[in-house]
């Protein structure tokens, strides 16, 4: 649910409830985008990364 749809009301319940959801999604999305961009750059630059289990 986003503020542009007709059921949205600017009250505390909507802000806290939906804010929590969107905060989680933004955190996860930002993390994933960061990883993908860094992986693309590493691939282009042929960076040698140690294996994470080593």
């Amino acid at each position: 649910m986003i503020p542009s749809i007709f059921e949205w009301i600017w009250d505390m319940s909507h802000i806290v409830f939906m804010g929590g959801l969107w905060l989680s999604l933004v955190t996860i999305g930002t993390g994933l985008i960061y990883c993908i961009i860094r992986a693309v750059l590493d691939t282009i630059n042929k960076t040698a990364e140690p294996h994470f289990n080593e």
Partner: protein
Amino acid sequence: MDNALIPKEVKRCPFSQFIILLGPVVGVLLLGVFAMSLVWLKGLNQTNMNDAYGFAAWIWADLTVIALGGGAFFTGFLRYIIGKDELKNIINYAVLIGVICYSSALLILGIDIGQPLRGWFIFWHANVHSMLTEVAFCLTVYLGVLIIEFVPLIMENRQIDRVPFFHHLGHRMHEIMAVFAATGAYLSFFHQGSLGGVAGVLFGRPFAFREGVFIWPWTFFLFTWSAAAVGPCFTMLITRITEKITQKKLVKENVIQLLAKISGWMLTTYIIAKIIDTWYWAAVTAPSKGFTLMDFYSNNPLYGIWILVVEIVIFGVVPAAILIIEKGRRHPILFITAVVLAVLGVCLNRWVMVLQVMAVPVLPFEGWPMYFPSWQEIATTMIPVTYGIVFISLAYRYLPIFPQEQELNPMGQMGPGEQEKPSILSDRKLRSAET
């Protein structure tokens, strides 16, 4: 045939043997898929649902797998946020079990709502006053987090790891895994709690109703607490079963002992809180609504006071006592008894909180409605078990799930009894013949 996909320095059984042994499990899985198709094509008339049981037996399976999957968030929390470094040797398996449990939970919900095409309504037309909406949000997003935590492990597959982009992606994801783990812990705290909160806010059903803090009834905290306590027990139980089947030691004892100790103390504090909650509910909350304790445990064929005693004493106090005493958790039989009892305890607790709640009459003229699921419900409820076995078998075969496996099982050394009894998932002699 699939040797190129198997991790280095470990041995697995021949592909043909692997397929034959998985055959019966896949057969049961296909029966579940057939039953699921019947429910989706023909509707909820395939179940024994009625006005008293509007969620069928699936709701119990749903809450149970979510609680058992709690090992993923709590182990992740201990590993990445608290910094218990030893747990890196079991976190992969905890995440794998979490992925299975949470994907199963969402699948069951997809069947239970009867009209999965409208499943997205709960996100788009959200009722922000409903704890179930919070559950739906957190459950879905947390499954996403678990998949993200599982992806670096897939990237570790021998062939996938050779592709530079996937190799770097896995590495970069692992680098910021603490961010994902923290998000997962936050989401899990709320959805585990809200599942308990759903029962606790039922003021029209004194068997479930509890007082609490602000908008959260005590059941909110008890559910989160029990999932954090028992989830790692389930991870350890599945680890032991896997070790038994593969006839290999897969995780060092100090890792299991650390997790068992933490789990034991979580279980101890949980069961103390549960006893206090039960006493207050029996002595104050229920009488204030016009009920005595025995009203909830008499005049019916199934739910006697025994269920309360078994849940709290046998499935709660006993495993907690075993796990917090070092001699108890180091003793192999006592240890396995404790984790089995703890797992059964959370299964029984969820049964009581979602099915007994629906059975207890709330009006003087009502009786106790009993419930027995249809074969379609039973077959679909078996899906998480069979799908879990298949998923774990594939992951164990092709991914480096256990970082200590190579060290604990150096190539060329046979495990005890291996010659006489080849294991189901790992076979060292036949694979060497194949290569």
